[in-house]
């Protein structure tokens, strides 16, 4: 019951007027930072970190965590309304969010995203509260072989992502992996795949640049091409009644995916190395793979919004865990928060819960409060976002273009990436015409940089023996499941092919 006493102290602390105001400002700022393409929670937290010297550390962390949270809600907004991922964590949200908005159901998409975010955040904060020390030891037991096994599992779920055309899916994955390998090799430190000797490739291909190119520019070109400018802008109107109806529908069709997203997101979040972006992408692919009718995904299924949105919020809470208990950031944003804690004179690490209970529990308490506020603020702003959608496409398309260019530049502050983004936009358009699935490439470029070093570290550990992935207690079962998943569609594919051949010869 000590936990409950600590928690109620923490919630009480976060309800102090100053903290409450900071939460409100934080989630609202976060919402807009998240919604701006190219600006994500990392930038928001980094920009606002210096401001926090004006308040005590416990309030400062509450403020920054509120921004982090708000940005997770906000990322969905531009993903849905404009088709440009607002942040890397919201890329998976575009897969179904944009099609749903084009069907005139933007309000359903936005409401589903807000609710799934809220539920994902709430579930993970309860897990956080109850099992923090235990989960910290789980995170520690994940060494390179375990993390690689997990990546393998994620790749296995991809195969289910690309529809039925497995060779095209595999091609798309390989393309993503090649892009992921550009830049410096982390292990030897040597530059590789620096195309045409252009120095801009030395820093690698930023994931967000690819995602904005593919989904922002590519989507805009596609819409222009397919509609010849005669796009019917959405008729969506907002009312209180509408929100209630949309909530019911969103949750009815997306509750299962919300739970999947919450679970996977939280778990991936607590592993240092991953973070909310892989968490949301993996949740989407698992939700699609386990769906009764996977073909509905990508066409505007609320479940395809619920899974990644629940996951990115769950992961953002989860990634606080290794930060507080191990002093290791679980995501790029927590890396900056960690720096902040050092500046405030705190030492994150295993003794944090005992040495700084007020700070830790104040932060945990604020998760509960921030979540409620973020939901309310988000729902309150939905009419504004819908209004944006009612602009004619002739106005919207240039807006998307400008926001994409700004977003592509903001990610790395390098013009090279803006050109690269435009190239990706054209490339995406071409691949789409040829009916190649693009999501697997996007997933591969996120997971590649995690999978490659862990694979090489594992094989160094085992002196080159791949059995290391099978004979370790945690890595073994994960690897087995991954192998089965990879083989299943291949078997199915070959069987169908055989049957098809036989049918072909019969006629």
């Amino acid at each position, binding site marked *: 019951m000590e936990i409950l006493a600590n928690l109620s102290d923490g919630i009480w602390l976060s309800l102090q007027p100053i903290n409450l105001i900071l939460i409100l400002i934080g989630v609202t700022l976060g919402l807009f930072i998240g919604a701006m393409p190219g600006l994500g929670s990392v930038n928001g937290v980094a920009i606002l*970190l210096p401001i926090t010297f004006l308040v005590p550390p416990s309030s400062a962390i509450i403020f920054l965590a509120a921004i982090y949270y708000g940005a997770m809600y906000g990322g969905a907004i531009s993903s849905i309304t404009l088709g440009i991922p607002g942040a890397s964590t919201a890329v998976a949200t575009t897969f179904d969010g944009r099609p749903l908005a084009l069907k005139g159901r933007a309000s359903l998409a936005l409401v589903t995203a807000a609710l799934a975010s809220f539920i994902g955040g709430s579930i993970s904060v309860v897990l956080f509260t109850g099992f923090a020390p235990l989960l910290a030891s789980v995170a520690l037991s994940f060494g390179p072989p375990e993390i690689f096994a997990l990546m393998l599992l994620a790749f296995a779920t991809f195969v289910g992502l690309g529809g039925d055309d497995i060779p095209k899916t595999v091609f798309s994955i390989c393309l993503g992996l090649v892009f992921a390998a550009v830049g*410096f090799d*982390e292990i030897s430190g040597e530059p590789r795949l620096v195309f045409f000797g252009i120095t801009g490739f030395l820093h690698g291909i930023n994931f967000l640049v690819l995602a904005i190119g593919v989904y922002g520019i590519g989507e805009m070109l596609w819409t222009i091409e397919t509609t010849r400018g005669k796009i019917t802008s959405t008729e969506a109107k907002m009312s209180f009644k509408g929100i209630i109806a949309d909530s019911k529908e969103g949750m009815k069709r997306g509750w299962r995916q919300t739970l999947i997203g919450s679970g996977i997101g939280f778990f991936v979040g607590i592993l240092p190395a991953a973070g909310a972006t892989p968490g949301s992408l993996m949740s989407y692919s698992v939700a699609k793979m386990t769906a009764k009718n996977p073909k509905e995904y990508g066409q505007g299924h609320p479940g395809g919004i619920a899974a990644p949105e629940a996951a990115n919020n769950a992961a953002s809470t989860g990634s606080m865990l290794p930060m507080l208990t191990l*002093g290791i950031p679980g995501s790029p944003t927590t890396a900056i928060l960690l*720096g902040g804690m050092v500046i405030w004179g705190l030492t994150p690490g295993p003794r944090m819960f005992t040495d700084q209970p007020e700070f830790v529990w104040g932060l945990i308490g604020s998760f509960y409060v921030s979540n409620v506020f973020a939901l309310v603020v988000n729902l309150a702003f939905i009419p504004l976002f819908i209004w944006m959608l009612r602009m004619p496409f002739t106005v919207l398309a240039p807006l998307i273009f400008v926001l994409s260019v700004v977003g592509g530049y903001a990610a790395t502050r390098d013009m090279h990436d803006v050109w690269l983004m435009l190239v990706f936009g054209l490339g995406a358009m071409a691949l789409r015409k040829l009916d190649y699935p693009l999501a697997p490439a996007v997933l591969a470029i996120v997971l590649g940089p995690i999978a490659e070093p862990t694979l090489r570290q594992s094989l160094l550990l085992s002196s080159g023996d791949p059995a290391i992935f099978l004979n370790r207690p945690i890595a073994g079962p994960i690897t087995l499941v991954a192998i089965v998943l990879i083989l299943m569609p291949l078997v199915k594919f070959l069987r169908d092919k055989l049957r098809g051949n036989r049918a072909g010869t019969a006629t």
Partner: protein
Amino acid sequence: MALTKRTLIKLAGAVALSGLIAAPATAFEPTKPIDFVIMAGAGGGADKIARFLQSVAEKKGLMTRPLVPNNKGGGSGAEALIALKGASDPDHTILVTLNSFFTTPLRQPGLGIDIQTFTPVAMMGVDPFVLWVHKDSGITTFEQWLDEVKKGGYIMGGTGKGQEDSLVITFLEQTFGLKIKYIPYKGGGAVAKDLAGQQIMATVNNPSEAKGFYASGDVVPLLAFSDERLAAMPDVRTVKELGKDFSYYNQRAVVGAPGMSDDAAAYYQKLFETIYNTTEWQDYMASESLSPLWLKADDQRAYWKTQVERHKELLAAMGE
């Protein structure tokens, strides 16, 4: 190894005194946000220091334009060096460095980086290295550790071949006749975490990176590679006490882009001198076990020269 840290401090002191005579007002003021490039990824030792420096400047209101941290850790810092070399506005581009400032251009001559073209700004201190093991290994002394390693199959982790910690590990191997398997990681934080999770058996990490796990008793320091014992762990012997003339530190220095104007250089030198003398930075050095080593601009160039020579030897010993 001829020029030790202590003589350098003396040298620095002498030059600092002579520098007091004339301190002309700087004619340069930044006109836009400053690109504050960090030669390492987010979350590591160098990154923490960079963000700390930024926050002190911010807190004390020392700047009219902000320092904007920009992580470029790719290729052991090669990405950052190339970015500085090609900076479009050298007066607004500065870099937080570590020893890869010396090793990366040596290991990758193809990059065409000559560090003497960079502009010295400030040496903020040097970060010592310590040998750590997990408490469950039962090892409490360096001698026990040697016996354990000599049994064979010993695995250590670090931030990559040719990086600071790997040079120290190579020194251990060659001086004590050991054979150690080395697993490279992305940063010091990941190394510390995998030692705490016992994925690897030992590490050579900066005290700041292992601080949390040391406080909780999960990891045990065995040997310090500093000139003197560290205040934070007074019972830990130095390698010099074992009769080996060796010490190794990671530099925590700020440099300007090649081609920075003299006025701009003077501005940043004054700025970081002010930061260096704040109680915030002095407290930070104490709590993170950094050793003070203040160097003026000209002494930094001399320091670079000796460090490049020294790293040439260390890398050659490694067979690089």
